[in-house]
């Protein structure tokens, strides 16, 4: 046994020895008992080394925080989590966190882009749209990336109250705090944007920027070389080409609507090869295309609709499970037009009507309270 020649320091440096002193068990006890039987002269060194290890363990671990310090760290972290929560997809929350629900006017926007591997991280050179996006975002702002690898839509609540429903295979980059309301999209998504004329909401995509002022629209561009389509559902948007050659092109960040302006049932198409932005004819067919998100096709127009049907519509549109007490709310019904409202606002309106509350955990929505309907 090598330990036969050990000095005190050798024992202290031996991780097996330290482990025996700190966490003795039968196997280790047997080993060291055997060792001491063979080398009884080592007994005093081993005993001294044991005491040293115990003292070292205790004395190197003397600076634990006080409970007050722990509590203060907890609170600071908790505060940050709450600040972030609005921008993080479906973190556990309670209804009273959503103060922005008072904002009424919203804009609905659908942007679809080619999913064929055209993402800035996969490329040597980031797309023009991504360059614009990162240029305008303040360098201090941390970016989050949400990607939907599931086969269901993924709903993201942004800090300004807008919600984005990401189609499977799509990704969205957004600043953690939306000072400028600017996001970058790869793939297809449906935007329900809170109206704020002083801060336009801009969706950057590969070759175009779409500015939302007071309307909703739809964009679709399949593979990387195929055209990008923008179509309006409600409200009003402006679409800009981000082609680098067109240095004269208006900047999308200005307050005015200088790009191609689209109103409901109007659409635009950006041709990647010719860098041309042309006006389309038919929006409705764009929304009806297979593979378009259910949320984009929905009108959310409920008229004496039974609550189970209302919840089912929301579940399908936003990719969530809604948990509620069927015996209590099952016979209730709802009359409301919720088109264009962000997800949380829809839930808020429904819960107000039911005198219920909601909370969200993961992708589950829990409805509590409410009264039995006859």
């Amino acid at each position, binding site marked *: 046994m090598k330990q036969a020649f050990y000095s005190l*320091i050798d024992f202290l440096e031996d991780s097996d020895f330290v482990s025996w002193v700190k966490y003795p068990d039968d196997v280790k006890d047997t080993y060291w008992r055997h060792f001491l039987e063979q080398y009884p002269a080592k007994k005093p060194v081993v005993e001294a080394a044991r005491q040293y290890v115990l003292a070292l363990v205790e004395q190197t671990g003397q600076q634990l925080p006080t409970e007050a310090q722990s509590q203060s760290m907890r609170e600071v972290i908790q505060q940050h989590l709450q600040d972030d929560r609005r921008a993080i997809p479906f973190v556990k929350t309670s209804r009273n966190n959503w103060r922005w629900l008072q904002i009424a006017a919203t804009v609905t926007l659908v942007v679809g882009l080619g999913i064929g591997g055209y993402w800035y991280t996969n490329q040597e050179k980031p797309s023009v749209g991504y360059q614009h996006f990162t240029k305008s975002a303040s360098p201090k702002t941390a970016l989050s990336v949400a990607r939907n690898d599931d086969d269901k839509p993924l709903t993201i609540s942004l800090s300004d109250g807008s919600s984005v429903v990401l189609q499977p295979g799509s990704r969205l980059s957004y600043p953690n705090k939306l000072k400028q309301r600017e996001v970058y999209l790869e793939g297809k998504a449906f935007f329900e944007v809170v109206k704020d004329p002083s801060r336009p909401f801009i969706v950057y995509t590969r070759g175009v920027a779409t500015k939302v002022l007071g309307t909703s629209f739809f964009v679709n561009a399949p593979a990387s070389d195929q055209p990008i389509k923008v179509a309006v559902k409600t409200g009003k948007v402006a679409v800009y080409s981000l082609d680098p050659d067109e240095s004269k092109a208006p900047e999308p960040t200005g307050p005015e609507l200088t790009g191609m302006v689209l109103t409901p049932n109007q659409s635009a198409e950006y041709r990647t090869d010719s860098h041309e932005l042309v006006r389309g004819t038919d929006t409705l067919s764009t929304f009806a295309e297979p593979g378009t998100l259910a949320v984009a096709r929905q009108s959310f127009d409920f008229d004496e609709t039974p609550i189970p049907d209302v919840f089912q519509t929301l579940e399908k549109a936003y990719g969530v499970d809604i948990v509620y007490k069927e015996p209590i709310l099952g016979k209730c019904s709802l009359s409301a037009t919720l088109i264009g409202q962000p997800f949380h606002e829809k839930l808020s309106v429904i819960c107000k009507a039911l005198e219920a509350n909601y909370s969200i955990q993961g992708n589950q929505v829990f409805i509590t309270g409410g009264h039995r309907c006859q």
Partner: protein
Amino acid sequence: MANLPTSLVNASDQQLWHYLRQGDESAFTAIFERYHRTLYNYGSKLTADSSLIEDAIQEVFIDIWRMHATLSADINSIKFYLYRSLRRRIHRMQEKYHSDERIDEVADEATTPISATEESIQIEQESRVLLHKRIQELITNLPKRQAEALTLYYFDDFSIHDIAQIMDVNEKSVRNFIHRALTSLRQNRNWLIGSLLILWLLMSL
């Protein structure tokens, strides 16, 4: 933060990591509760500024939460990850990462090993209280990186390999840090016995 469901208190680090990556806040809380105290203890070996330690710990955890979706799936040890993050964070906050470290390392490399025979002559039992007091004094007076290595090795149960990665040095340096610290512990002991003897002589006069 949310109260912990009992199932998570006993969950393995791997399970907690898995849930954290899915955005489970209670797993995040469980990790904080499991490690923030020993992290603080470790941080106190890096800086004496307790508010800096608290800030650094908070930032490490806030970052983990913000990045939970992009965290690597095959992380071997949450603990290792946290310690290394905390160390980097504290050094960055002090902005003196490069200035004093190099010199320190050279000094610590020069080690004279103590031979076993010379040492084994004087193994006496000393009182537990005295030993603890001595080690406590030693640790506060050791060069920072020796105290850091001792803490990671004895209190935090890290292997030499892990300590080397946490401290950003090679394994030989880590062994040297520990060896030098233990050596001064022995030397300091002889000095202390000597001074106690003098004290006793003085008092008996």
